[in-house]
């Protein structure tokens, strides 16, 4: 036992000496590993912080928010049918559904088009008609001014709550409340400016105008049948499935759907979007991880190559060691430890560089610019480099340990 420990200690010492004696070569040897690990850590850290940023944003959007939309399936579409949800549907659901905390109706102001004008500036945006409960459902709060009130809706006021991009694009003053904007000939007074939400997948989340539901409804005119979206949030602890079932039953009854008719509507949840996104990031991480593993493999082969060169170059040294009484195990261990130290060193340096790179990239990304390297990535890359050290160090180490002393001594 003491013998094993002694051999372990002395051969590790010899390995360290060899590494420091060939500083430049050791550094170059580890370069492959450094690059490989740095790449893994950078990619994983970026993907990770990107996905947290986006998950956070989706949470802001209200991940527990559910949207109920009209849905026309392809067969019905071919028959020229177009299903709709009406304001009456909304009122009925609002009155009859249990376990729902906030429910709001939104309507596209298609009669107003999508262009908006202020002074000489104009821009394209989306105009949504909804009521005061909308802000609680979708977590949109005023930065300046106020959101729509119930009386705005009751009195069909021509007021607008605008996203920050709209104010920016229209070159409005920093406090745009009280200003008037023109929506296809109709003047609306700005009553509030929304908090900025930033971009999601490059999609501007601040480019919208919200006006009272009744105002938009009257502007759309009675000649067109309403088509609205209904958004709601289940009460705390309530089962979404039960709510869905209840709503479906109410709507099917109202739309006079019988046994095997398909629904005229569908439920959309942010949870689903989140899940899809998580799948995408996992896939990207896996692919990037795979590509980067190849570079780690190349790094490992680099280590093996240099170790083989090192064994050849130090043949005489090995011969002397063996002539003076070094056992094959001692030599084997020395070269193995040398490979191991080199690859682990590369792994640790790569970790630091990868972290730095990821932090740099994070500064150009949306979100708070924070960066985190998940523990699994650290353990994985260090584990992998250790394995590389052992696997690729083994062949040269065995070669060294098997040398015949006289042959090794004769080597020049």
């Amino acid at each position: 036992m003491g013998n094993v420990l002694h051999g372990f200690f002395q051969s590790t010492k010899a390995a360290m000496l060899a590494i420091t004696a060939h500083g430049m070569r050791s550094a170059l040897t580890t370069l492959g590993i450094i690059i490989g690990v740095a790449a893994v850590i950078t990619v994983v850290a970026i993907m990770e912080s990107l996905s947290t940023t986006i998950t956070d944003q989706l949470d802001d959007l209200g991940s527990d928010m559910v949207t109920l939309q009209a849905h026309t399936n392809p067969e019905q579409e071919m028959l020229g049918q177009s299903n709709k949800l009406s304001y009456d549907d909304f009122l009925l659901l609002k009155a009859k559904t249990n376990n729902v905390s906030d429910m709001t109706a939104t309507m596209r102001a298609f009669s107003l088009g999508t262009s908006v004008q202020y002074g000489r500036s104009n821009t394209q945006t989306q105009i949504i008609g909804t009521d005061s409960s909308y802000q609680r459902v979708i977590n949109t709060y005023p930065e300046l001014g106020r959101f729509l009130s119930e009386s705005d809706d009751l009195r069909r006021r021509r007021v607008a709550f605008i996203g920050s991009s709209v104010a920016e694009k229209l070159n409005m003053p920093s406090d745009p409340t009280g200003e008037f904007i023109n929506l296809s000939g109709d003047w609306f007074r700005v009553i509030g400016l929304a908090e900025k939400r930033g971009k999601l997948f490059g999609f501007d989340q601040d480019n919208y105008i919200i006006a009272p539901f009744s105002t938009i409804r009257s502007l759309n005119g009675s000649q067109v049948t309403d088509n609205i979206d209904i958004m709601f949030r289940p009460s705390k602890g309530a089962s979404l499935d039960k709510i869905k079932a209840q709503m479906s039953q109410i709507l099917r009854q109202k739309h006079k759907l019988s046994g095997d008719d398909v629904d005229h509507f569908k439920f959309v949840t942010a949870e689903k979007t989140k899940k899809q996104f998580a799948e995408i990031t996992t896939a990207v991480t896996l692919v990037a991880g795979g590509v980067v593993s190849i570079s780690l493999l190349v790094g490992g082969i680099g280590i093996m190559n240099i170790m083989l060169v090192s064994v050849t170059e130090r043949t005489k040294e090995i011969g002397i060691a063996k002539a003076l009484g070094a056992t094959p195990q001692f030599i084997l261990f020395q070269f193995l430890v040398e490979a191991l130290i080199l690859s682990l060193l590369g792994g640790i340096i790569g970790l630091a560089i990868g972290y730095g790179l990821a932090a740099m990239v994070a500064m150009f990304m949306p979100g708070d610019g924070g960066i985190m390297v998940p523990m699994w990535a650290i353990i994985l890359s260090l584990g992998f480099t250790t394995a590389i050290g052992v696997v690729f160090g083994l062949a040269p180490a065995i070669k060294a340990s098997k040398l015949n002393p006289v042959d090794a001594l004769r080597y020049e």
Partner: protein
Amino acid sequence: MSQPVKDSVIVLKDITKNYKMADQLFCALDGINLTIKRNEYVAITGPSGSGKSTLMNVLGCLDNPSSGQYLLGQKDVASQSEAELAKIRNYGVGFIFQSFNLLPRSSVLNNVMHPLIYRIMTNKKREALARNALKRVGLSDKIESLPNQLSGGQRQRVAIARALVTNPAIILGDEPTGNLDSKTTADIMALFDELHEQGHTIILVTHEAEIAHHCHRVIRLVDGEVESDITNAIEEPKEFVHG
């Protein structure tokens, strides 16, 4: 020769060593039969290329003979494992190489300490033993030098110190005084005499008649064969004097 087997440290039976050169076989050792007893003081002489170094490598377990049997301390060397051979090289024999074979990037002290790395002892003890060995060869003032900062004779003495530091039962010197002046040669020979008195077995390869004559037994190799094996008269000068 019929020595009692018990006393025989080294027994060679029909040892040959062949080298393949191009497609013909070169026979460096051609059927060596030899018995060396404990505490013998042997010189091996012979012309250059006669196989002296080849024989020493076999004796030091650094090389395998092509055929024949080598019994070292009653044990057949061919049946020893690599680990056992390593132990023999470390504990059993002290080898002084004709070409020194010092580690070029290690200091004199570290070179001499090198064989002790394979033994369990404190580094302090290793250093003390190495310093003592260096003192015996008269190199106490060069401890921190690198081998390439030393003269040929000084390097040779480092090689001798490294062979002595392990206090081996058998000392194998391949021309250990080849690079030394007469004064240093006398000092080193006095050292071997002292070791011999302490009971070590000493085998030296030499070209010099004086040294050969100083030893108790002279084996002459020619073309890989033992040409003569003479035991010197006992009454010889105690003090080695270089001609």
